[in-house]
């Protein structure tokens, strides 16, 4: 069967919507279009029932109670609400003063965590950004070393979106519990792919986004623990008092129904999918590495999601590489700095040198990735890198045994 080009290997950026999800959503556009806040008629009741059902579906996937799930517009909003909402609620000094409390996070978090943390830093909170080791995995030990007496919040992602590396969430959660510190995790890349249980995993707040798990874009959820401890948040968006006042705004019912359905499907299928994808990912990495020297798979080899692969190719340049793999829709570490494209801060954050950070690909597989697509990707990546290496003066020098760091480069 002919492949549809370009093949899609950017499932960590977003996933296609499962047709079963779309089907579940459709009636809520046209027939059951009510406002869940309308108490006086069946349109409103139908919408409310739909939101309740979806809340249950999300809760089941997370192992929490329905009341602990808040609907948001996605992981960015969930992260903002969790981080700022906790900071403002648990602050140790009022606005305008310093020493308002300490937050622990990590340098390779998503921008939707880093930027809220930086904002709080400007507003008088102290933030420690843990610098992860070369394998990208954040451990409880590292968090422990960063904690202070005035730490109010630890926010560490469950799995990294660029590397797929998995952090020691359960252990970090246990540490936080022991210290009485609130623990938030951005689980956008994790939920729906890997088994999650906020009780066993000691999580107090968790962000997720529907479009990463074959649901629609623009909808997500924040899990907020209600018992041991009861986590309080300051609302950031005020208005009609929806979502128990934590998140005002008319419910995005179609999106919420889609999120719920996507969670229900994930619950049933993620284990099987993960096994299949892990095999495909191994095949992909082995296939590329067997045919190309001077390549590295970034991030810890074992503690990694089954579907994300981040590979750096020595002696080829990022943008040239993207052209060479034009039939594969994927992400790159970026290109030449002269075009003011910075290499990925995540790769830099785990100590990958600028040169390799520039020439890396993130290939992320999804539910509908086929073995034929993986074979195609191996072929195109290998051919592309080989072609670029024939053109690369650096690869020549490398083969001639010239140490590139000893060359007098004409910087410009």
């Amino acid at each position, binding site marked *: 069967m002919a492949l549809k080009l370009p093949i899609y290997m950017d499932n960590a950026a977003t996933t296609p919507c499962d047709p079963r999800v779309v089907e579940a959503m459709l009636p809520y556009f046209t027939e059951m279009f009510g406002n869940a806040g309308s108490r006086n008629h069946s349109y409103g009741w139908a919408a409310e029932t739909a939101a309740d059902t979806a809340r249950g579906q999300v809760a089941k996937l997370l192992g929490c109670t329905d009341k602990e799930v808040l609907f948001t517009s996605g992981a960015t909003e969930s992260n903002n609400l969790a981080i700022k909402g906790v900071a403002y609620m648990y602050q140790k000094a009022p606005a305008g003063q310093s020493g308002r409390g300490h937050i622990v996070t990590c340098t390779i978090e998503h921008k939707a965590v880093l930027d809220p943390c930086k904002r709080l830093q400007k507003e008088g909170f102290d933030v420690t950004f843990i610098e992860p080791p070369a394998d990208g995995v954040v451990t409880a030990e590292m968090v422990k070393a960063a904690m202070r007496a005035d730490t109010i919040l630890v926010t560490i992602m469950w799995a990294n979106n660029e590397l797929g590396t998995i952090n020691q969430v359960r252990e970090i959660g246990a540490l936080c519990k022991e210290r009485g510190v609130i623990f938030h995790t951005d689980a956008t890349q994790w939920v729906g792919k890997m088994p999650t249980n906020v009780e066993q995993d000691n999580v107090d707040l968790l962000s997720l986004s529907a479009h990463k798990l074959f649901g629609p874009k623009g909808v997500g959820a924040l899990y907020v623990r209600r018992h041991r401890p009861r986590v309080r948040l300051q609302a950031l968006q005020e208005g009609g008092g929806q979502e128990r006042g934590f998140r005002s705004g008319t419910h995005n019912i179609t999106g919420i129904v889609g999120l719920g359905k996507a969670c229900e499907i994930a619950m049933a299928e993620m284990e099987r999918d993960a096994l299949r994808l892990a095999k495909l990912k191994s095949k992909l990495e082995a296939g590329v590495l067997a045919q190309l020297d001077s390549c590295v798979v970034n991030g810890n080899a074992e503690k990694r999601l089954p579907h994300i692969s981040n590979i750096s190719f020595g002696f080829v340049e990022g943008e040239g590489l993207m052209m060479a793999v034009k039939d594969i829709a994927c992400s790159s570490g970026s290109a*030449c700095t002269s075009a003011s494209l910075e290499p990925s801060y995540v790769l830099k954050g785990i100590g990958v040198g*600028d040169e390799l950070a520039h020439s890396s690909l993130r290939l992320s597989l999804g539910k509908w990735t086929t073995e034929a697509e993986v074979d195609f990707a191996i072929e195109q990546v290998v051919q592309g890198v080989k072609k670029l290496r024939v053109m690369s003066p650096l690869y020549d020098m490398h083969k001639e045994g010239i140490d590139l760091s000893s060359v007098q480069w004409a910087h410009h």
Partner: protein
Amino acid sequence: MPYGPKVIDHYENPRNVGNFGTQEQMKSDKRVGVGLVGAPECGDVMQLCIKVNEQTGKIEDAKFKTFGCGSAIASSSLATEWIKGMSVEEAAELRNTQLVQELSLPPVKIHCSVLAEDAVKAAINDYRKKNGLPDMAEDHDHAKAG
């Protein structure tokens, strides 16, 4: 980054990829000039080599190797195509603006063409140095973006 058809053509079928032997061999050949510009950490390195006919003073062959984006590859490929058959003096007149125009490079890609011009100049200077001639003077400014 969408590329124009000429950039794509040079990228897909680069002209004159190669060199005239190893770095050592090229260093000891007086007919050969090597220009190596850029730096790996900037994401672009271009090596452009010329071979000059001692009788005619013309560039009888030119080769490139480029570590860089599609525009950098196309600029160096096109530059080798153009300077082949030129005298060294003529080749020294090559301007990045000519490459920009021929390849329809957008403003963010102008520096890729500057790199190619610099590589040609560096190769010519290397050739001149080997043959006891002074460097050519920098006598103009590059057209820059913005």
